């Protein structure tokens, strides 16, 4: 029944709608660069969403955990085989994305008889010098974008735009600043998603001021506190100053408590 071109276009359109629905309640992912590296941040329930891929590559994802695992494994395999056969410096984020996973995701998306990947990916790549860092995002349909100093994943492009608009105004030099900015940007995104859900009539309880999209930090912290009741903050950095070839480091609870803004750290235990 999909043989006719018109049907196919319609089927792909339906797919887009289905996938957009799947992400509505997902947790946004924020990637920001700071002085000595890149920070990836999200909030998760149970399954982690931030991973190490290679010496200078880290992954943040949104979507179905099984799909994310599948893509994570193919990224890991490609990166390690390439790093072994050639050299670790030949393992670059843009090659992995452009020739590795993006075509696979696109194909799965367009083959309407098969299941698509319910996943959005953010791949952070630490450059040799600051200013050479890059953040790559892939959408569920295989479109990818490369960004310089920050990138986000959110339920819809409207949500992402709101987060980016917030990030544009911030300056991030130290890790503390980066974490502060990232959690706030996450809150901006998460709040926007709640709002979108409400507008669609699927009311969720326990949200404050959905109509007022203020980026006042107190309001954002309050929103975060609420979310902390059922989720945990997950942070990892690619740290240029770290000894050895592997630059990835997950930020543990104690370190996070020290780095979070004072208002937050009291109750994030």
């Amino acid at each position, binding site marked *: 029944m999909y043989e006719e071109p018109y049907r196919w276009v319609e089927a792909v359109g339906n797919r887009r709608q289905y996938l957009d629905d799947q992400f509505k309640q997902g947790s946004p992912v924020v990637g920001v660069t700071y002085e000595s590296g890149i920070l990836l941040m999200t909030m998760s329930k149970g399954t*982690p969403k931030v*991973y*190490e*891929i*290679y*010496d200078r590559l880290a992954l943040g994802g949104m979507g179905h955990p099984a799909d994310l695992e599948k893509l994570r*494994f193919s990224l*890991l*395999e490609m990166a*390690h*085989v390439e*790093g*072994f*056969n050639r050299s670790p410096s030949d393992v670059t984020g843009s090659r992995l994305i452009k020739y590795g996973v993006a075509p696979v995701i696109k194909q799965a998306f367009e083959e309407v008889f098969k299941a698509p990947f319910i996943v959005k990916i953010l791949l952070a790549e630490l450059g040799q010098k600051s200013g050479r860092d890059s953040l790559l995002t892939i959408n569920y349909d295989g479109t990818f974008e490369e960004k310089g100093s920050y990138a986000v994943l959110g339920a819809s492009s409207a949500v992402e735009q709101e987060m980016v608009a917030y990030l544009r105004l911030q300056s991030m030099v130290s890790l503390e600043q980066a974490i502060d900015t990232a959690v706030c940007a996450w809150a901006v995104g998460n709040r926007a998603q709640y709002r979108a859900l409400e507008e669609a009539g699927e009311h969720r309880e326990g949200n404050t001021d959905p109509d007022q999209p203020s980026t006042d930090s107190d309001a954002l912290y309050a929103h975060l506190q609420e979310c902390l009741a059922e989720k945990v903050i997950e942070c990892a950095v690619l740290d240029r100053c770290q*000894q*050895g070839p*592997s630059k990835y480091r997950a930020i543990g609870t104690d370190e996070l408590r020290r780095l979070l803004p004072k208002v937050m750290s009291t109750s994030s235990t």
Partner: protein
Amino acid sequence: MGLQGDFYQVLKEQGYAFGIGGQAKVEQDLITATTILAFKYRDGVLVAGDRRATAGNMVMYDRTDKVLEIDRHSVMAIAGVPATAYEMARILEHSFKYYRRTQLQELSFEGKLRALSTLLKQNVPAALAGTGAVAPIFAGYDTEQETAKIYFYDILGAEFEGVEYAVSGSGSPTIRGILHYLNTWGEQPLSTMPEEQAAIQALRLLTSAAEFDSATGGVNRDANLYPVIKFIAVGGVRTMADPQLRSLFESDVSRSV
């Protein structure tokens, strides 16, 4: 299967073949022209090696690094055919990284030992043919058991634990006796020595090996050439810097000053 985090298997699936093929036909002398040693000191384990690479009577290279860092907590010191040994080190390094990143946990120390043993076993034909014999020492800090460990291998892949120390290479017979003497009747057992004193002993041992073994490179002060000494403790692997080696050598090893 990729899902089990076995990088070597992934490589094989991609058509990779390890080792130099060879048939055991002529009985060859096993050449391990080098000296490597490892012993436990107060905070962990010290691994050291000379830096000479030879081919028969010829000195090929005097700046070889035979003490290879595999990951943050383990080191492999190599004696034998360098081509094969470096390849093994590369496979191990990637295997441990791959395991950690896919399985989201560190490979256990036993798992690491097993990985090296498997590679050596794969390499038996080349080892017997004389084109790829490797007899390494694998030392590391077992973060689970919070203790330092030393293992040494024969060329067929059998693994032996060196409770206090291990040596390998052509210069090893010389220093094995010294190590035994030092550890048994010395002023203090090796395992209680602080870092600096352990480094002095390692320098003295390698200098002795070079005295009696032409294939072991000693210290060449004119060329500012010192052995490689690495310490593995809770915090990870650390290499002793050349200036420090020089000052220790001049104050406690050299007798001409």
